[in-house]
């Protein structure tokens, strides 16, 4: 099938439709607007529903209702809107409802700006709302990967009955790259015997995150913990780029990882043994990616579009065995490849120590 040129935001929408998502509830915010625009047109074509809510708070609770009623459903927003959704995300996690939440991250804190950033990493990977829970977080780095990961996102949400977040930024949303959409397949959505769809002669179903008796909530928490452990074992995803013999390993995700690939190219051309680990799942963090390189690598350089958030996960993974450095731009500014190359040269061979 021929490739078509597509914007990242539109690819999220098309990827969702092709993954069998038929319901979208959301509230406008920059920089993800092309996605609602796309789905408002596209969903009615496939018998689905696009509904604009009165707030992000309402949107995520509509998602809660739709997911509990058995639908493949999603919402999307950016930083400030995702903050408003945290209440609902916590309830979704507590009630174990599958759904997909897209965060096209912008500069913060507060109103910040609408430029691309990665500063919602903590919020995404640490649960974000109240209580002991985790959200699976996927971070695509190209338009094709967006298409592919939307299917993965909905499948993971179903498999684990857990909210899945797709974390991008304004660059990924706005940029165009060729994509191969493949055949449009009839998606078979796994049965949801737990959904509350009216008893229809069957047992009573309850969608709830309330466990008023502490002993019962503890049991529920432990059950969730077992699920999270399984996800950590099964679902770590990452890309390795030029890792063979790498003395300095860059670690970056999303747009920052694309820039770092250019950095690696340039360094390799100059004979510097530099490679890249690109986490695709931010949670679970791909700790497994580090085991094969930890002995050969002399250090790690984490590059982020923030003041340094994922760097903490890298430090937890490396656990003091190697130095972990950080380079970041924030406030909506992008790391410039030439600047990162300079940083690499400063560190290469341990000069940074």
């Amino acid at each position, binding site marked *: 099938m021929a490739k078509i040129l597509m914007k990242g935001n539109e690819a999220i929408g098309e990827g969702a439709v092709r993954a069998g998502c038929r*319901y979208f*509830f959301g509230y406008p915010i920059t920089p993800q607007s092309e996605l609602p625009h796309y789905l408002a047109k596209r969903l009615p074509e496939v018998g689905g*529903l696009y*509904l604009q*809510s*009165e*707030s992000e*708070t*309402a*949107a995520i*609770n*509509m*998602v*809660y*209702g*739709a*997911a*509990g*009623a*058995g*639908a493949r*459903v999603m919402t999307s927003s950016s930083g400030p809107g995702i903050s408003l959704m945290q*209440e*609902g995300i916590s*309830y979704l996690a507590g*009630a174990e409802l599958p759904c997909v939440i897209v965060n096209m991250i912008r500069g913060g804190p507060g109103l910040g700006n609408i430029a691309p950033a990665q500063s919602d990493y903590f919020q995404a990977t640490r649960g974000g709302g109240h209580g002991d829970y985790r959200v699976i977080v996927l971070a695509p780095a190209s338009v094709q990967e967006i298409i592919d990961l939307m299917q993965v996102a909905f499948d993971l949400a179903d498999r684990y009955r857990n909210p899945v977040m797709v974390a991008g930024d304004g660059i990924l949303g706005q940029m165009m790259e060729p994509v191969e959409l493949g055949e449009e397949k009839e998606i078979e959505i796994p049965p949801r015997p737990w959904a*509350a*769809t*009216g*008893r*229809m*002669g069957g047992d*009573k*179903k*309850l*969608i*709830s*995150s*309330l466990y008023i008796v502490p002993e019962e909530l503890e049991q529920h928490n432990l059950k969730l913990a077992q699920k999270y452990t399984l996800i950590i074992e099964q679902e770590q995803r990452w890309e390795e780029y030029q890792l063979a013999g790498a003395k300095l390993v860059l670690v970056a995700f999303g747009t920052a990882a694309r820039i770092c690939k250019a950095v690696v190219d340039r360094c390799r051309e100059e004979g510097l043994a530099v490679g890249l680990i690109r986490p695709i799942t931010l949670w679970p963090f791909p700790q497994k990616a580090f085991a094969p390189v930890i002995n050969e690598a002399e250090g790690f350089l984490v590059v982020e579009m923030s003041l340094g958030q994922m760097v903490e996960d890298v430090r937890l993974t490396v656990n003091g065995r190697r130095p972990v450095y950080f380079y970041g731009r924030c406030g909506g500014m992008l790391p410039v490849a030439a600047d990162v190359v300079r940083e690499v040269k400063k560190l290469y061979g341990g000069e940074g120590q």
Partner: protein
Amino acid sequence: MQKVFTRPRSLKDIPTHYCPGCTHGIVHRLVAEVIDELDIFDRTIGVAPVGCSVFAYNYFDCDMFQASHGRAPAVATGIKRVLPDRVVFTYQGDGDLAAIGTGEIVHAAARGEKFTVIFINNAIYAMTGGQMAPTTLLGQKTTTTPYGRDKEVNGYPVKIAEMLSVLDGTAYVARVSVHDPASVVKAKKAIKRAFEVQLAGLGFSLVEVLSACPTNWGLPPVEALKWLAENMIPYYPLGEYKKPAEVG
């Protein structure tokens, strides 16, 4: 011997946690009787709020959702949009619906969402310990208005039935009370109409039920019902604020 009074099928046979004299029990029963009479039990989905009726999901025997504080209308929107042939209702108190959830209730009503809202107005936050509600009357003493609600400090009580009835999306809006048997009969009629309006696909329906909270009002149950009649009804007039032509 003929059985003339029995528990509605739609209510579970378990004790409730409600205080003596609380009228939640009456309203639960009315909703359950209506579900039984309309023969919709098997396809009804309820949404419980945060507040005293947080455990409503344990008492109604149909499929239930527990929603976060104030968001029941958004949750119900998600359910009904996915399952348009099911009957969906929310059961919400005054703190839930008229304070933290005003955005959700107003816009669900404005969109004409085809579900039914049972709105319990007892002029107080009961579960959290008797604080002032958006519907607390002027002069009414609560744990956060120990000298009585002062309009200079707290403004005025919110009249939900009146507010929502002006929206084009609402099809049926009524305010009823459950302070005496005659009122209970009228309340049931209104609740039944609200569900019928939903079944006919006519739009959003809401019944505001003036209710008693003896515990947090600091009154014996009978006195509380009297207080409701004498103080709440004059400020919150009963009646059908909006009804479609098709419904008598």
